C-alpha cells in the first residue's frame, strides 16, 4: 500500500525547472540550453514549428528521453535520473493512446491498478474523473466506440486519475476537428485551473497556445525565443521570428527618425528600419491614386482580413477591418495603406546587429 500513499501525497502544485537542458541525437542538436521555470499551478504552452524541439523538451520532462546535459527539477528535487514510471507525471498523447482492449473505466483505473489501489477506491476515483470530464455514461464503452474528442477526454481523465504532480500534453488536440478542439481546449483549461496542476502543453497551433496559456514559450531550433504572457507575445514580440510565427504581420519600412503614430506604408528597403505591424494596426484608405490594389478578402465573422499588394515592389499588406469597412475594399480597389499605431516590433536598419531594437 506504500504506492497508493505515494499517489495521494503527490498533490497538485509542483513547480518545474529545466536547468540548462541540452539534447543531441547523434550530430543533430535538438535543444540548446533550455532554461525554463514553470511555477506551481501554472500552464505554460511550448509553441514552435515542427522540428523545433518542443516535443523533445516535453519527453525529457516525462522521462522518455535523457537530456545530454542539464537537470530537470520538480518541486525542487532533481528527477533527471528518475525512471519515467516513477515520476508520477500525467501525460496525454496526440491520439490513439488509449488501451484498445480495455473499457473506458478500465483505462482510467489503469494507473491506480498499477499502484495497487483497492477496487472500491479505484472505481470511485474513475467515476469522479469521468463525471468531471463529462463521460459518465461512456464508462463501459471501448475506445474504438468513441469519437476522437471523447477519446482525448478519456486520455485526460486517465492521466489525472493518478493525481500527478505535473501534467504534460503533447499536441492533444491536433487530430480533432475545429469545434471539438476548442471545446476540449476550454475543458482542459477549466480542469487545470480547478485542480491547480502544473501543466506543460506542447503545440504548433498559435491560436491554441495563446488562448489556453498563462505563459507561452516560443521555441525555434532548440532555443526559447521568448517566454511571456500570451498578450505580450502577440503585442510585443521580442524577435522577428516570434512576430512572424505568432499572428500575422506586415513588414513596413520606416526611417530612423520615425517615433510612432500614423505612417504611410512603404516597402522595407535597405537603410530603413523594419516595422512589424499587426493587421489591426493598419488601415487601407480607398484612393484612386493609391499605390496598392486589394487582392483578396477573407471573411472570418467578426472581422474581415483584406490583403493588398503593390506589384511594383512586391509589398504585401494585411489589414483587419470591420464588415462595414470591408464593403469599400472589394478586390481591385486602389488603396493607400497606413500604419495607425505603434508597431509590434521594430528592427533597426543596422544589420550588423539585427536583434537590436529601437524603442519606438
Amino acid at each position, binding site marked *: 500500500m506504500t504506492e497508493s500513499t505515494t499517489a495521494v501525497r503527490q498533490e497538485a502544485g509542483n513547480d518545474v525547472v529545466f536547468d540548462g537542458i541540452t539534447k543531441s541525437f547523434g550530430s543533430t542538436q535538438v535543444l540548446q540550453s533550455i532554461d525554463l521555470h514553470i511555477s506551481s499551478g501554472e500552464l505554460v504552452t511550448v509553441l514552435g514549428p515542427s522540428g523545433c524541439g518542443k516535443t523533445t523538451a516535453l519527453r525529457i520532462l516525462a522521462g522518455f528521453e535523457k537530456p545530454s546535459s542539464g537537470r530537470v527539477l520538480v518541486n525542487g528535487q532533481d528527477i533527471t535520473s528518475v525512471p*519515467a514510471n516513477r515520476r508520477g507525471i500525467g501525460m496525454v498523447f496526440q491520439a490513439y493512446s488509449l488501451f484498445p482492449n*480495455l473499457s473506458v473505466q478500465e483505462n482510467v483505473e489503469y494507473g491506480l491498478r498499477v499502484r495497487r489501489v483497492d477496487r472500491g477506491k479505484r472505481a470511485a476515483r474513475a467515476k469522479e474523473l469521468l463525471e468531471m470530464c463529462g463521460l459518465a455514461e461512456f464508462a463501459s464503452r471501448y475506445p474504438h466506440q468513441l469519437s476522437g474528442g471523447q477519446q482525448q477526454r478519456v486520455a485526460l481523465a486517465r492521466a489525472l486519475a493518478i493525481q500527478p504532480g505535473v501534467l504534460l500534453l503533447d499536441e492533444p488536440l491536433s487530430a480533432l476537428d475545429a469545434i471539438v478542439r476548442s471545446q476540449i481546449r476550454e475543458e482542459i483549461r477549466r480542469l487545470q485551473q480547478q485542480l491547480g496542476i502544473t501543466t506543460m502543453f506542447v503545440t504548433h497551433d498559435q491560436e491554441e497556445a495563446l488562448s489556453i496559456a498563462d505563459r507561452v514559450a516560443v521555441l525555434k531550433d532548440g532555443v526559447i525565443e521568448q517566454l511571456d504572457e500570451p498578450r505580450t507575445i502577440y503585442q510585443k514580440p521580442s524577435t522577428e521570428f516570434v512576430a512572424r510565427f505568432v499572428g500575422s504581420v506586415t513588414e513596413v519600412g520606416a526611417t530612423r527618425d520615425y517615433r510612432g503614430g500614423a505612417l504611410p506604408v512603404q516597402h522595407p528597403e535597405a537603410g530603413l528600419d523594419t516595422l512589424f505591424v499587426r493587421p489591426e494596426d493598419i488601415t487601407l484608405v480607398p484612393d484612386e491614386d493609391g499605390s496598392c490594389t486589394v487582392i483578396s478578402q477573407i471573411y472570418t465573422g467578426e472581422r474581415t482580413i483584406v490583403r493588398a499588394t503593390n506589384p511594383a515592389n512586391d509589398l504585401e499588406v494585411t489589414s483587419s477591418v470591420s464588415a462595414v469597412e470591408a464593403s469599400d475594399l472589394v478586390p481591385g480597389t486602389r488603396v493607400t495603406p497606413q500604419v495607425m499605431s505603434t508597431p509590434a516590433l521594430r528592427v533597426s536598419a543596422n544589420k550588423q546587429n539585427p536583434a537590436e531594437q529601437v524603442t519606438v
Partner: protein
Amino acid sequence: MSVPVAPTPGSAPGAPPGAAAPGGGAPGAPPGARPPLLSRGRWDGVTTALRSPAVLALAPLTLIIAVFFLVPIFGMTTIAFAVQTDDGGTRIGLDNFLDLSSHSRAMRNSVLISVVGSLIAAVAGSITAFCIAQIKSERLDSVVAVFSSVLANDGGAPLAFSFIVTLGNTGIIFGLLGLEAIGFTLYSWQGLVAMYQYFLIPTMIMVTLPTFVGLRKEWTEANTSLGGSRLTFWRRVGIPIATPALLGGWILLFGSAFATYASAAVLIGSGGFPLIPLSIDSLLGSGLGAGGQSTAMALGVTMVVIAVVVLFFFNRLQRRSARWLQ
C-alpha cells in the same frame, strides 16, 4: 501434378459467397454495427449490387468459383450422401459417414499431427514475429512478409524430397547430427510434424507480424507514464491485444496442417501411417468401386466441414484484433 489442398488466406473457401460481391455490407455503415448475418438488412447491398451492370466484372471470379469450388463440392456431397439400396436404386442417407469408423485411425492421426504441429509452429512463429517486430525496421518487416508468404506456400513433393535428402535415413543432416542414435526417423509422425514446420512457422510469422508491428509506441509510453513496468504492459495490454491474432494464427495452422496432402503422400505413402487425405487417395485408387468412392467423398465432406469451421473462427478472431489495431 499435385494440387495443394492447404487453405491459404488468399483462397479461403470458408468465406461466404456474398463476401466477394462489392458492397457486401450496407455502404457507409461503421464496422461492428453490421446487421446480423441472416437478417435482410445485411444482404440489401448485395441485391442492389447484383442488379448493376458492374456485376459483369465478377464473371471471371464467378466462373472459377463455380468450376473449381461449387461443382466439385456439389458432386462430392451428392456422392457422399447417396446410399445404394438393395433393389439397385439410391437414397439419401448417412451410411457412408457411419462407415468412417474404420478410418478413425486416420482421423486420430490427422488431428494429432495437426494439433502438435500447429502448436509448435504457433509458439515458434509468434516468438520469431515478436522478435522481428522489436527491431522496428519497416524494410525488414516487408522483406519478412514477402519471404514468409513464399515459404508458407512452399509445400508439396519438392518439400518432402528436400527433407528426405537432409533428414531421411541416409540424409546429410541426419548423419551429421547422429539423429539415428536418439531414435528419430523422418518416416513417423514426429517426422511429419518436423516437415510441416517448414511451412507452418512462416505462415504464423506472416499472420502475427502485423499485430506485433501494430502495437503502438503510445501504448507502451502511456503504460510507463501511468507507473507500469514493461511486464505490466505485456500482461495487461500487449498480450491481450495480440491474443486474437495468436489464436487465429494457430487455428489457421491447424487447418493448413490438417489438409496437407502432397508432402505427406511423398514422405509416408499410403502405408503405415494413415491420414485423412492419404486415406481418401487410397480409397479412390483402390478397386473398391463405388463403395470406396462414396466413403472417400464422405471423408472429403468431413474435411470441408472442419476447414470451414476453422476458417470461420479464424476470420472472427482476425477481425477483432484488426479493429483494435486500426
